[in-house]
């Protein structure tokens, strides 16, 4: 909408959203984000991992379902909200779908910025919103059979902190 302007001096960085069945390499992803931007002073990262225990039952595997199209749109919207709130360079969100075993990685969020407060807050914000607004559903296989995981009131409370 604006007239063309000169490139912003700090306009390095991009938002990347990936929904995939494959695992991801945290070290390689962080290195790729940081490459070539000597203005980055802070990298905040969160990795969500499949546990072998949930709500008191052993979990032998998990199946992650999503809503193709809407999931990517929701994650893009969450990332845009984070950029409105904080001065950031890069946002990377990778979320796996399909079959996932205990100790395997489920989700990765990486945020880079000049100073630490901004990447910390944005990373936590992204996870809190992702947990409550991005269409993913977990089904766990336990000795008692397969069960859909219930949403947690604590996740809604965490997301509400940012309102």
């Amino acid at each position, binding site marked *: 909408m604006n007239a063309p302007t000169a490139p912003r001096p700090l306009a390095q960085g991009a938002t990347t959203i990936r929904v995939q069945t494959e695992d991801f390499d945290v070290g390689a992803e962080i290195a790729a984000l940081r490459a070539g931007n000597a203005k980055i002073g802070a990298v905040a990262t969160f990795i969500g991992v499949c546990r072998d225990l949930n709500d008191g039952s052993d979990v032998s595997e998990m199946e992650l379902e999503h809503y193709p199209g809407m999931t990517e749109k929701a994650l893009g919207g969450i990332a845009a909200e984070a950029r409105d709130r904080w001065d950031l360079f890069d946002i990377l969100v990778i979320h796996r779908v399909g079959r996932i075993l205990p100790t395997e990685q489920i989700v990765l969020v990486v945020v880079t910025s000049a100073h630490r407060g901004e990447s910390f807050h944005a990373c936590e914000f992204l996870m809190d919103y992702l*947990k409550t607004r991005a269409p993913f*559903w977990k089904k766990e296989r336990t000795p008692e059979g397969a069960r859909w995981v219930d949403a947690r009131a604590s996740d809604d409370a965490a997301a509400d902190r940012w309102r």
Partner: protein
Amino acid sequence: MLNVLYFARLRDALGRDAERIELPAGVADVGGLLDWLRQRGDVWAAELAPGRSVRAAVNQDMARPDTPLRDGDEVAFFPPVTGG
């Protein structure tokens, strides 16, 4: 026509992941469509009952009961999300 999608526990319980529905007479919004679906009875009445925490999206944006519906919309129903 509406393209109506069901996900996760709802899809399992309702026995379908999608259907095409001619926008019913008198249905103007998401809440109206839910009422109409409940009138199918059985699992529809049970799974979509007001206490069951059903979430909806219209054209891939989160929606509320008063979100309007138009011919051609993609409407999705699903339980609260549990990713991450």
